């Protein structure tokens, strides 16, 4: 299929197949993911080399070294032993085992070659038996045959690496210096991926960069917004800059499915899952951790899906992403993975386990990192049918010291919510009622930054209310809960501080009967959107938590996603085609619920604001600015005014131009119409009336006598 067909061939082929090409909507055709029908994308050339190697080389052959050296008598026995070992790894090809013999001594040479049916089997065999102890003096060293070439190519003498001259690159932070302090966002619709400025003043997006088939599945910003990652069949790539979006680095990982950045964007974790050759086996999973800037693989993890499936002893089928959760903070010091009865915590200096061993925690169900500090919160369910209580504990890393622990009884499930500064941790605890037939929910609130980490129990006014959503105010001390019955649940706001005693949680307000099922705090705090997504058709309520008042209510019909811009000035609601095929697109609102503009796009998949790195201002300075906002805002208000004046002027100008152009058309048409007058008259057999467009409505009054009847009335004088 790789060869190029001319249009004529295509038409001929279509005719044979009985396809009407004109009926065919080419735009609606989408290649299945991972398939290109031989159409080579421009990214492929670099990877091609490696791919070819894999296909035509000796990828399915391994070399086993350090096997015993035996005489001819024992040859068959040894061959039997080796065959037995490697038959477990996969299917050895016929004549696939070759053990060379020294013709002089008639002894074996201590190594052999094994050819498997597939490269995957070979790789697996290499991984599993490298270091296999046959006996004390024979520890196998297994290599891929292909690797030999590489080993041979290593020069004997060390040569200093060539130092490339420094090539100045684009300032990757330049987008932050936009004069109008706008934010960028990326959207994916159809095959196009586009990056825009959100030009809220002009009430429209301003295109920065557009590229078709930029990614094969999705795009993702790095957490600080420096990079945009794209995903391809051969691996992931990152792009950066304010407007150029040059490719900065590629990360080879065939058939990569998922990616995840570390919070300080130093590392990129890529994940792929491969069908096993034996259908009874679990999928094979490959995870690579790359250094984002150098593109080097820092560590790889391979294994069957079972090894990565999490969820305590019971075992949840499936792998939850991200498998590796990063410790908070920009340092990217630790990352951890949940395993069976353990949590494996790695540190990034050596990319090995802390103290070389995993943290053993019997039946651990879940854990989460503090977003700022190296503190782990973990949850262990009840064990021994309730004899041993469930518990939530906080661990300090790397010393693995337990900071705080709380035992909980008759627990069915726990969920942990960290406040974004790591000041508070809320644990939502679902408990069984006495009859064990139903559950009710309470919260355990940890004050992490206070001495001894005090814990407070919060129960809702109505204990039996179901919790629909919970969300902390970013950087704040408040949180919101949606609770109650589904059609019209209540929304409550709480604060971790009270006016007099700062150590108590207090309720601020409860809003009754809201059509909401999700909470979206502004990243700057203070404001929240109570959203009724999906089932509630996209109801939106913009709420000011400081004043406890509703700023606006609106609807974005069938909205599926809500995203605040990183500054908390604007918010976007979108309808993606994943859930709903109609009216795909997005609306941009101001923080207080004013619709600024809306964009409709068919096959709309993704909307992502470009994140901003945290501000360098100290909290005091920020507070100072907030206090004197009037002073600072004056300048911008003037600017806004100018822009809006300019805008209306531009608008008027544009309208005038349009009207003028239209007038030109009209006069042209009039002239041509006049020219055709005689001819038209002839066509109409001389009918002179050529006034069909100057229609005159004449009102003709017609009086019609419908019915006349005589009535005689009598009047009696009384």
């Amino acid at each position, binding site marked *: 299929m790789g060869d190029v067909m001319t249009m004529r061939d295509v038409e001929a082929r279509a005719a044979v197949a009985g396809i009407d090409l*004109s009926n065919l909507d080419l735009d609606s055709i989408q290649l299945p993911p991972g398939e290109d029908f031989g159409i080579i994308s421009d990214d492929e050339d670099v990877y091609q080399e490696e791919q070819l190697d894999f296909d035509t080389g000796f990828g399915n052959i391994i070399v086993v070294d350090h096997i015993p050296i035996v005489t001819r008598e024992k040859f068959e026995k040894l061959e039997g032993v080796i065959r037995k070992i490697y038959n477990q790894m996969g299917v050895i090809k016929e004549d696939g085992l070759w053990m060379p013999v020294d013709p002089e001594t008639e002894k074996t040479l201590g190594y052999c070659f094994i050819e498997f049916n597939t490269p995957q089997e070979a790789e697996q065999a290499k991984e599993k038996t490298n270091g296999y102890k046959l006996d004390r003096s024979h520890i196998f060293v297994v290599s891929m045959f292909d690797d030999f070439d590489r080993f041979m190519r290593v020069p004997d003498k060390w040569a200093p690496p060539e130092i490339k001259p420094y090539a100045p690159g684009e300032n990757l932070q330049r987008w932050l210096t936009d004069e109008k302090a706008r934010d960028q966002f990326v959207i994916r619709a159809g095959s196009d991926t586009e990056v825009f400025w959100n030009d809220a003043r002009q009430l429209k997006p301003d295109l920065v960069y557009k590229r078709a088939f930029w990614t094969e599945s999705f795009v993702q910003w790095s957490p600080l917004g420096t990079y945009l990652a794209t995903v391809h069949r051969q691996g992931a790539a990152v792009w950066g800059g304010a407007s150029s979006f040059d490719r900065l680095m590629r990360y080879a990982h065939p058939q990569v499915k998922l990616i995840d950045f570390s919070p300080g964007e130093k590392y990129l974790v890529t994940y792929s899952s491969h069908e096993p050759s034996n259908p009874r086996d679990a999928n094979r999973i490959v995870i690579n951790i790359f250094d984002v800037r150098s593109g080097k693989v820092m560590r790889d993890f391979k294994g069957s899906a079972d090894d990565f499936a999490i969820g305590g002893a019971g075992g949840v089928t499936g792998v939850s992403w991200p498998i590796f959760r990063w410790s908070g903070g920009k340092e990217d010091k630790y990352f951890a993975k949940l395993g069976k009865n353990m949590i494996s915590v790695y540190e990034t200096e050596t990319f090995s386990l802390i103290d070389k061993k995993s943290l053993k925690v019997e039946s651990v169900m879940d854990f989460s990192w503090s977003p700022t500090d190296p503190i782990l919160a973990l949850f262990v369910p009840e064990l021994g049918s309730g004899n041993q209580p469930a518990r939530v504990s906080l661990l300090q890393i790397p010393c693995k010291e337990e900071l705080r622990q709380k035992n909980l009884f008759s627990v069915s499930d726990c969920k942990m919510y960290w406040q974004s500064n790591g000041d508070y941790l809320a644990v939502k605890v679902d408990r069984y009622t006495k009859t064990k037939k139903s559950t009710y929910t309470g919260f355990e609130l940890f004050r992490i930054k206070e001495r001894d980490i005090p814990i407070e129990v919060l129960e809702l006014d109505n204990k039996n209310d179901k919790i629909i959503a919970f969300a902390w105010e970013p950087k704040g001390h408040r949180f919101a809960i949606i609770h109650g019955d589904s059609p019209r649940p209540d929304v409550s706001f709480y604060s971790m501080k009270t006016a007099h005693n700062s150590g108590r949680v207090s309720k601020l307000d409860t809003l009754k009967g809201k059509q909401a099922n999700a909470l979206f705090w502004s990243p700057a705090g203070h404001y929240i959107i109570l959203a009724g997504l999906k089932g509630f058709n996209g109801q939106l309520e913009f709420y000011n938590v400081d004043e406890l008042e509703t700023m606006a209510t609106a609807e974005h019909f069938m909205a599926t996603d809500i995203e605040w811009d990183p500054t908390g000035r604007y918010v976007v609601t979108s309808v993606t085609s994943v859930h709903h095929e109609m009216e795909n697109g997005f609306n941009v609102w101001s923080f207080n619920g004013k619709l600024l503009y809306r964009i409709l796009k068919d096959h709309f998949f993704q909307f992502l604001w470009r994140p901003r790195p945290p501000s360098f201002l100290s909290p005091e300075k920020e507070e100072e600015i907030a206090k004197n906002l009037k002073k600072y805002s004056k300048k911008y208000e003037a600017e806004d005014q100018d822009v809006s004046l300019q805008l209306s002027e531009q608008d008027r100008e544009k309208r005038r131009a349009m009207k003028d152009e239209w007038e030109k058309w009209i006069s042209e048409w009039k002239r041509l119409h006049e020219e055709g007058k005689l001819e038209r008259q002839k066509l109409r057999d001389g009918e002179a009336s050529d006034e069909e467009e100057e229609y005159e409505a004449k009102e003709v009054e017609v009086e019609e006598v419908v019915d006349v009847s005589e009535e005689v009335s009598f009047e009696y004088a009384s």
Partner: protein
Amino acid sequence: MRPILMKGHERPLTFLKYNREGDLLFSCAKDHNPTVWFADNGERLGTFRGHNGAVWSCDVSRDSLQLITGSADQTAKLWNVKSGNQLYTFNFDSPARSVDFSVGDKLALITTDPFMELSSAIHVKRIARDPADQSGKSVLVLKGPQGRINRAVWGPLNKTIISAGEDAVVRIWDTETGTLLKESDREIGHKRPITSLTKSTDGSHFITGSVDKSAKLWDTRSLTLIKTYVTERPVNAVAMSPLLDHVVLGGGQDASAVTTTDHRAGKFEAKFYDKILQEEIGGVKGHFGPINALAFNPDGKSFSSGGEDGYVRLHHFDPDYFNIKI
């Protein structure tokens, strides 16, 4: 604005046409009987019985004496408007869709759908003054476009024929030689099938509506794209006000998806746009199915819409409509 609901059809409407004086409204539907109504009060005047399939479109002569209809029963028929009698039947080998009288009413064009091995075609017939002399012979047959031709109309002075259809291209044909003169640019033109095409009163420009959720305004002579009106729904019907600089788009999602969506999502609205500024001015709701047909009264003071729901809604504008400013 309180619409007059005209319930005379049992199946979805397909086409609406006012006569020149604007006192009669002709409606076509998928039931087999084109109907004529009084355009001021919506009273039914009569039906034209004789077709044996959905009627796709009609045209009325300038003197309001003759009506031509194109039907899925593979015929186009000439009718006496006054009596409702059939005057002549043009037989084809595939469904007839679009019909249009030429300037002077001496010619009529009839388009036929692709059917079995037949490709779509535009037939030009001579219309005899006396129906007794009428013949079925074609003066000209135009073939070429792939897929169905949804609408074809005469250009200025009958020198050209403008066609548009499923292949999303607008074409201008020479009626003298039968050659293709112009094709709309695929880059700037419609991206999906064109569903409707309506000329301005003087024939100088026309508007096309398409499944690609837009309508476009073209110059009839040069086929220059002048304006584009973007909406949220596939456009099934378009109309231009003869009085004000307004265009109306009607549509709605595919009829097959109607039952699976909320009525609010359906958006079965007739949307008004400023013809020059291309901005939406307002909408008229009411149909509970997609709008398939739209027509303006030649006086520009009322318009009617026909829907998949089988209703014709006749709207007389309120006085404030004539003072809309944007």
